[in-house]
């Protein structure tokens, strides 16, 4: 209940892109011809009950209690709001230094930006913004595009650590240096621990109490440095890590994922080489240019690679919906399809940051689907898979109960170029188009 009120207040704080926001009640039902749920396939005659900006229930032909207002559009198709997980919209911060893992895109946020308002019209209800730069660039933030203050925008921070890896010594060194910094910290921490242990030994030999030992974890944290300074450490306080090292410690512990940008097959191998034995969770950003040789590293067995291919690793790949050609030829390849078939997980993003490319995002994905990519995979790649990349899949990305009511209403199939986006709902509020119960 408290949660609901919280959300309500949150929802009311959301301004709308449209000058005349269509006011919807707190509780209402939607009845549409079809719903793409992403997790549960396509529902015909779908009914969605929304309360306080969340989906309460969704099903086929559900009876709606009398008195609940119903948006009844039997010719419309509904799907979850689009998630552009890899974007720099509205950000204009300059690229930092080569090695800045502590950078956060959330520090550059600019609420009330026109650019963000624009893409809402094209159905984008969630964005993942990353810090600019080369090398280890920093940490991305997941936002909703509308809000008065920066805090209103943020859904989740430190979503992924963006790393640009190129086939060069400096680029590979940046990654290795990061892990070395983490190693240095571990070493430092070990020494501090030993020192503390020794001091404890000394104290033990003298008559002292050891009541402090039984303190819980939380209390340990609360004990601040001044105690350490004053009475000597009765409780072990690990030394503070340099924020650069902390990012890599988080990578190792699994708190942070890496999103590594590699352009070519060779760079993928160089990335694996630079990574060495490190066990971290990583996803790939693969910018597809017109000519791409990434098909070489799809599967280990295809070309007798020594390392596992992208498909073998079941890596998550952030791609543009575009067809490519083999270098030096006109042989067309559908790399998004090949990646999906090889076992990789797809996240599709607009071809560029421009408004037209956001507008044609679905149509572009439609082209790739027409060329062979599985339709369900394509829809998932723009919604739930992207939400998973950002770590917000628990609250959005599909039409399931208890998820945010981020809905797109189309006049027909979303991937059909003739379909029109009629309305966009962001957390239970209509932010584009007109829908009345």
């Amino acid at each position, binding site marked *: 209940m408290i949660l609901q009120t919280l959300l309500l207040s949150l929802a009311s704080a959301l301004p709308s892109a449209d000058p005349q926001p269509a006011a919807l009640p707190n509780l209402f039902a939607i009845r549409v011809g079809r719903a793409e749920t992403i997790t549960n396939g396509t529902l015909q005659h779908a009914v969605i009950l929304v309360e306080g900006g969340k989906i309460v229930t969704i099903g086929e032909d559900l009876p709606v209690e009398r008195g609940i207002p119903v948006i009844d559009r039997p010719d419309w198709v509904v799907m979850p709001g689009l998630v552009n997980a890899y974007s720099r919209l509205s950000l204009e911060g300059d690229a930092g230094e080569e090695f800045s893992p502590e950078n956060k895109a959330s520090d550059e946020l600019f609420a009330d930006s026109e650019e963000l308002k624009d893409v809402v019209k094209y159905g984008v209800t969630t964005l993942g913004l990353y810090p600019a730069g080369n090398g280890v660039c920093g940490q991305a933030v997941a936002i909703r595009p509308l809000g008065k203050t920066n805090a209103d925008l943020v859904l989740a921070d430190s979503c992924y650590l963006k790393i640009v890896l190129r*086939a*060069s010594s400096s680029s590979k060194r940046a990654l290795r240096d990061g892990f070395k910094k983490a190693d240095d910290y571990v070493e430092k921490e070990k020494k501090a621990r030993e020192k503390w242990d020794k001091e404890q030994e000394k104290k033990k030999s003298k008559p002292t109490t050891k009541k402090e030992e039984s303190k819980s974890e939380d209390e340990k944290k609360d004990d601040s440095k001044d105690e350490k300074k004053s009475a000597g450490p009765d409780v072990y306080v690990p030394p503070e890590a340099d924020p650069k090292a902390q990012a890599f410690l988080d990578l190792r512990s699994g708190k942070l994922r890496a999103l590594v940008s590699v352009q070519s097959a*060779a760079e993928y*191998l*160089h990335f694996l*080489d630079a990574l060495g034995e490190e066990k971290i969770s990583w996803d790939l950003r693969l910018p597809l240019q017109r000519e791409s040789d990434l098909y*070489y590293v799809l599967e280990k067995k295809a*070309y007798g690679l020594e390392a596992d291919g992208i498909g073998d690793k079941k890596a998550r790949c952030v791609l543009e919906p575009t067809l490519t050609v083999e270098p*030096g030829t006109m*042989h067309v390849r559908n790399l998004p399809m090949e990646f999906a078939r090889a076992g990789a997980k797809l996240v599709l993003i607009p071809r560029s940051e421009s408004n037209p490319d956001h507008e044609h995002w679905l149509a572009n994905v439609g082209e790739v689907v027409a060329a062979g990519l599985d339709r369900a995979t394509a829809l998932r790649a723009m919604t739930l898979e992207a939400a998973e990349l950002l770590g917000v899949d628990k609250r959005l990305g599909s039409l399931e109960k208890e998820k945010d009511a981020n809905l797109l209403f189309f006049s027909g199939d979303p991937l059909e170029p003739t379909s029109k986006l009629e309305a966009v709902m962001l957390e239970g509020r209509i932010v584009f188009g007109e829908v009345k119960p």
Partner: protein
Amino acid sequence: MRMNRILGTLALASLFLAPLARGQEPEPAADPKKPDDKHKTEETWFAVTGGDVYTGDGSFLRGATVLAHNGKIERIGFELDFPADTKKLDATGYRVYPGLVAISSSGLLGNSSSEFEDTIDPFSQRMILGLASGITSTGVGNSAVKLERFRIAGAVLRDRIYSTFSWSSRNPSGKQGLRDKFRATADYMREYRDWEEKVKKDKELKEPPKKGVDNAVLSVLRGDTIAKFNAGDRDDLLGIARLAQDYGFRPVIDGCQEGWTVADELGRAGAMAIVTARDRRPKDEHQVIEGGTNIQNASLLYRAGVPIAIAVQQTGVDLSGLVGRDIMGLTIEAGFAVRGGLPEAAAIASITIVPARLLGVSHRVGSIEVGKDCDLIITDGDLLHYNTFVQWAIVDGRIAYDKQKELFFAQIRPRPEPTVAVGERKLDKGESKPEAGKDEADKSGEEKPKEEKPKEEKPKEGREVGALATAPRLIAAPNRNGYRVGGKPVARLTE
């Protein structure tokens, strides 16, 4: 370098021993789990069968087999036995040469010429074109690298090969400076050796001072690196020869355009030359004596005992510039040296074993010898002929290039069907898959390993060549120039 030479000699010696060992029962797979190989993932065997093998050291074996184990040449000869899981490539009717060694190239493995290991692109189109030209190893900058496809590890054979010096008549003080450095360094080395002797008795003795010693010169005189000069003028060549004789090192001279006028002097000084047969430079008209370029340059230098490595004019793959003068024309360039009088065997050596020696990697590459890397090219005719295509390039016992599978030359004189690699042939429509083992048994005639012998470590494949011996033998008959018209092997029957 010295070590390399010793290794090279060892490899050479083992080649001569190989035929002697032929009579013994070879047991390549007898002990597959040696303690050293414990963490190796798998044993790989690869054989190129039935080709006319030009080993690169003068010998020629018609219809021989080259067998590789884990990327190294294990055995060369006739009627070899090999394990059943050996991957085979039927080169009957084709020629087998050692993979070419380009003395220098650029852009085949990546864009950068420095920090090599971190910039290699093993999927590059240029690498495919390099392999299509027969090149399997190359010098890049100051390193020697292999054209390894699909992997980035192990490509660098050797780095820090050369110490490069400048010696030019246009810079007399530079010449004097270099001489001084050599003198100071040679003196230092003499004093150092002396000190080494004396310090055994008198432990207080101080090391000789390193004043005036140049590290590059020191590494040359110690034999760690090779002294390289870029020079072409007769006077400069004579100066370098003199310097080399005075201080006892063997210089590599890149360019060497007027080398033919002082070939004897260069030969006596032990110089090695990197030459381009089609180099053009006019004679200096102020000189009465002979000068300028000469197509006989390579030939005359070779006859004077100067080891020759042939280089091309443009070291990259150039698809728009001077056609035929980029790295893809390496064999053509060697052909022009033959036109100038260089013996054919020497021309082949000038793009294989000699550059391998100059790069200090002749213990690994440059000829087909037991113990060396299995880097081969299989051609459809004489290596130096303009009509010849590289059909396959093998790097480390793996097929790195197959003309029919890459898009560049597949459509030009396509390879006839039956010569597709054994075991790799796709089944035709309606053709049923042969029963497991039946196919092999058919090939080996009656020699199928019998079930009564349970103690056989691995079912041997039988005698691949032996089976052919029972049937009328097919031998490709190259015409006088050693190539086949139309790309189709002309075969004749022999008894």
